[in-house]
């Protein structure tokens, strides 16, 4: 998450002080991503250094400075909003690795391992969903941020379900079948190796 650009976005609404930016940042993310005030001042210093924000109070202490966005800052914000983040590299997902490893070990029940993770993720989703329960109090930014987390966790469950189904099918294949090793680690490693 780019604090730098989020602060630029808030400054694009008008000049603001650091403490104000922190408060508004937390409000706009529904307080799902807390921000410490030190991060705000460091980021503002860098924005100023790079010519993206400026302040008339040159001599003043960080906390006393009122910042505004510059024309270059506006351009940078517009560019950032329209640039898709790089999703091309698959993240090194610990959960995926655990299931892959479990699927290779003879004395480990991979389905048991999958269920432990499935239960944990569903419990986590229950916690996030509880935060949306009171609709009257539900802030839009907060709901969007919570949804993002729920969809991310849901994709984990879907992958676990799919891995479960695929592994079950693989265990039903007759011994010696060429598909027998289709879930094994080496083939995955080969693919990631080729990618890099």
């Amino acid at each position, binding site marked *: 998450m780019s604090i730098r650009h989020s602060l630029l976005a808030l400054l694009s609404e008008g000049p603001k002080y650091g403490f104000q930016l922190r408060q508004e940042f937390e409000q706009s993310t529904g*307080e799902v991503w807390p921000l410490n005030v030190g991060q705000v001042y460091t980021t503002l210093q860098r924005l100023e250094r790079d010519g993206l924000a400026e302040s008339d109070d040159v001599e003043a202490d960080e906390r006393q400075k009122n910042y505004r966005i510059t024309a270059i800052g506006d351009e940078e914000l517009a560019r950032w909003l329209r640039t898709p983040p790089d999703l091309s590299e698959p993240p090194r997902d610990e959960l995926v690795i655990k299931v892959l490893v479990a699927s290779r070990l003879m004395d480990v029940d991979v389905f048991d391992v999958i*269920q432990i993770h499935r*239960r944990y993720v*569903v419990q986590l989703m229950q*916690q996030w*969903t509880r*935060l949306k329960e009171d609709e009257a109090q539900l802030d839009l930014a907060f709901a969007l941020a919570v949804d993002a987390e729920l*969809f991310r966790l*849901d994709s984990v469950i879907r992958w676990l379900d799919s891995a479960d189904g695929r592994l079950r099918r693989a265990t039903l294949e007759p011994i010696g079948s060429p598909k027998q090793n289709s879930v094994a680690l080496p083939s995955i490693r080969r693919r990631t190796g080729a990618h890099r």
Partner: protein
Amino acid sequence: MSILELHKVSKVYGQGDNEVDAITDIELVVERGSLVAIMGPSGSGKSTLLTIAGSLEEPTSGDVIIDGARLNGMSRNDKARLRRRSVGYVFQDFNLLPGLTAAENVSLPLELDGVAMKKARAKGIGALDGLGLADRADSYPDQLSGGERQRVAIARAVVGERSLLLADEPSGALDSVNGESVMRMILNACHGGVAAVVVTHDAKLASWADRVVFLRDGKAVDETLAPPSPEELLNPNVANPQ
């Protein structure tokens, strides 16, 4: 107080070589006011469990108790009466009767149970009103959107003094925002004292439940523990003091 109890409930379809165990030794107790979700892959026995819990189907063995009444040995008529009075169903495809208006669809179970038409209709409109659909009371199902049809189906399931709400993939083909409203309505019914069981393969829907039971090959293999307070997600330091 428990509204639904299943004890050692099993269901076997077919005979001899064709015998299939749909569900085996299911233990499930659902308290008044609680929402339980049943998750599992296709063919894991979720729908069988729900139809048996709603007395639409007989178990091969085991006990089903609804609202304190044991279903074993109960006559067909008594079961039908119990179903009409205590149990509401929400199906994936809504199952509204196309020739009846929204209000008529909702009040039908009450009328079948002998409630006078006028009174039943008033209760039906009240249930629709509770789900924000009072102005659609005279519309026919084909004049309603998917989300509205599902709300009518939920109104029909909770109208009267129903104590048990059973839902099979209740969000059907609705998008996720409408799916969420469906779960919110079911949860509201639970806050009003209804016990609900929702069968779904969608973790986003299941996560509205107080408890999630995982079904696999007809057996309840696992269930969620009471999750920690949601506030811990926003204040990680509370949960993790380092």
